């Protein structure tokens, strides 16, 4: 084939993207929007238990990964784990030996059975001892968070065809305790298995997450069949030391962001709005322990940032840090000492966003690129090294291989000195930069080899 030029490729890309717009159903978009808005209308300051349930509901809906059963693993009946993103190995974390964790796991297993009993079934459905002949095996779908050892699966033979079952699932009044996620609907696909995911908020948020109930159905030569599988995970035990137990005197949030292809930069906010600070502290206090064992999965993205909340009280200082990632967890330290275990961030981010929006930035950031010119080598080059900012405070920042740098500084005027690696610093004249709170300014220090 002739090698297409860039214009032809651009046209082909455009055509491809436009052609696949049809995958986006505008009615679904509206339904999702309506669902989110309905969620928003719930009271913002829920009682603790209800808030925790809401948190867990959000967690139930949190990311999912594919799990593949080990070859030869039974896919049927009471033998539970049907595809899970959780590790397939036995619980190996140190928390497994903790009586508290064991108790949580037992409670979670009982909950899994209870939720399976809630599966909505049309009249005439008959439970099967295992999967019907011809039921697809191989790649499985799971809902996170999930622990394969806690999943339970059942199959039923359903009278009527798939259309009748879907009509039933669309119109059925769900048993008390089961809810549809905003925007969730019966999904039918041509020939393959269709599915519907339901949620049950946790009845004991401290012990286990909410439960996802995944319904999948398909017509086989011998009839129409429905499979129901539960997904949930047990939690660890939150240490008492991780709770803020005295009068709060200040709250700050340090937000670090790593731009795509750039160096990280940070900004610190003082949450001087008392109500916003209280809400953030309450949100942190309401977090549950992370699930046990910690999920392991393929993480397609690297970390891109971290939020760290520092809460100073009359008795000490707590730091709660959560980094972006597939399975983020809140790491806690008290008075500089890391505490064991982590917390589940759930929707902490929402409280953080609210606090930051109400807070006052107390630092700004400087970023830029150090350029080296002159000397025997042609063109403009970069140099690694260190930048020294001298002003209200003195700070140092490393210069990356591509010459880029970033620094977080209190407001003020700074003299910027370049200390390049392998180059006489006298080639690099000092420059000045003015940093304002909440602003991100660019500096362009350079070195000219004479």
């Amino acid at each position, binding site marked *: 084939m002739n090698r297409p030029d860039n214009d032809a490729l651009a046209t082909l890309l*455009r055509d491809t993207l436009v052609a696949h717009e049809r995958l986006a159903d505008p009615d679904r*978009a509206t339904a*999702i929007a309506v669902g989110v808005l309905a969620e928003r209308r719930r009271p913002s300051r829920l009682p603790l238990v209800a808030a925790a349930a809401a948190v867990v509901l959000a967690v*139930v809906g949190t990311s999912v990964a594919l799990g593949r059963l080990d070859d030869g693993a039974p896919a049927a009946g009471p033998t539970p784990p049907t595809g899970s993103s959780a590790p397939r190995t036995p619980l190996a974390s140190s928390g497994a030996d903790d009586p508290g964790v064991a108790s949580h796991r037992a409670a979670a297993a009982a909950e899994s059975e209870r939720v399976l009993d809630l599966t909505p079934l049309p009249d005439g459905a008959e439970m099967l001892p295992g999967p019907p002949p011809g039921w697809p095996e191989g790649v499985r779908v799971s*809902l996170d968070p999930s622990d394969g050892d806690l999943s339970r699966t059942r199959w039923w033979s359903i009278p009527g065809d798939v259309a009748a079952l879907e009509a039933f699932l669309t119109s059925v009044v769900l048993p008390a305790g089961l809810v549809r996620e905003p925007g969730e609907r019966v999904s039918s696909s041509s020939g393959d298995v269709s599915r519907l995911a339901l949620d049950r908020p946790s009845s004991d948020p401290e012990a286990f997450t909410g439960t996802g109930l995944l319904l999948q159905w398909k017509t086989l030569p011998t009839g129409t069949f429905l499979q129901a599988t539960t997904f949930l995970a047990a939690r660890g035990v939150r240490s008492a030391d991780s709770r803020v137990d005295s009068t709060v005197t200040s709250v700050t949030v340090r937000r670090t962001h790593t*731009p795509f*292809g750039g160096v990280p930069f940070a900004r610190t906010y003082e949450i001087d709005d008392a109500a916003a600070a209280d809400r953030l502290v309450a949100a942190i206090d309401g977090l549950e322990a992370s699930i046990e064992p910690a999920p392991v999965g393929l993480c397609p993205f690297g970390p891109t940032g971290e939020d760290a909340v520092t809460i100073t009280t009359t008795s000490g200082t707590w730091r709660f840090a959560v980094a972006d990632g597939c399975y983020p967890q809140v790491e806690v330290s008290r008075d500089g000492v890391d505490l064991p275990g982590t917390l589940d961030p759930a929707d902490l981010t929402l409280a953080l966003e609210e606090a930051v929006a109400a807070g006052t930035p107390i630092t700004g950031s400087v970023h830029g690129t150090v350029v080296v010119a002159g000397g025997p080598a042609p063109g403009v080059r970069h140099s690694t090294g260190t930048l020294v900012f001298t002003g209200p405070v003195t700070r140092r920042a490393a210069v990356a291989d591509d010459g880029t740098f970033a620094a977080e500084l209190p407001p003020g005027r700074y003299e910027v000195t370049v200390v390049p690696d392998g180059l006489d610093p006298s080639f690099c004249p000092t420059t000045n930069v003015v940093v304002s709170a909440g602003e991100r300014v660019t500096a362009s220090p350079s070195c000219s080899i004479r």
Partner: protein
Amino acid sequence: MTILHPWDGAVPAFSTSGRRRTATRTASRAFYGGVEQLSTEPRTFADVVTAHAPALLRLAVLLTGATTEGEDLLQGTLLRAVRHGERIAGMAAPAAYLRRTMLSEHLSGGRRSSRRVRTAGHGLDRVDVPQPSPDAGLDDRDEVWRWLATLRPQQRAVLVLRFYEDLPDAEIAEVLSCTPATVRSHAFRGLAALRAHLTDTHDERSTP
């Protein structure tokens, strides 16, 4: 209340005609440009969300490559935005803000995401990517769509913003928090990789 959203109201139903594409591009520009605020009457976050949801879902699906994940990305984006609803509603360009939020949500790996059920492979899964029929000719667009799925999210985002949204590199750089040079680099490398991929694919097909 009169809020005109040309990308929703004026865009015809999907077709592969050039008119459709032109309409899309015009609509996209409206998202980022200054024509978004067409009414001086107050509007609510609900107005903003319901009006922009279809266009946001289109972008989400193209960013993620799948209906299900696109819907989850939209939901995660709106959940993230909902706490600042009234502030967003008061913005001059709320759709642009929502799109930046979506990009951030997408590229941050869904830390704030809601349910995400991944489908892939066969058997139990619904596959959103069109699969070529064995007895039908392979459309280059199918091949390109499959190739897009192999890209890193950032690189795919650059191509979607550049070739679907028609954004200039500077705006893409701002949305993705990177430099215009990085955008150009991704676009250049992306086209080169696509060229090589298509050439290989065609060569394979023409090999008896």
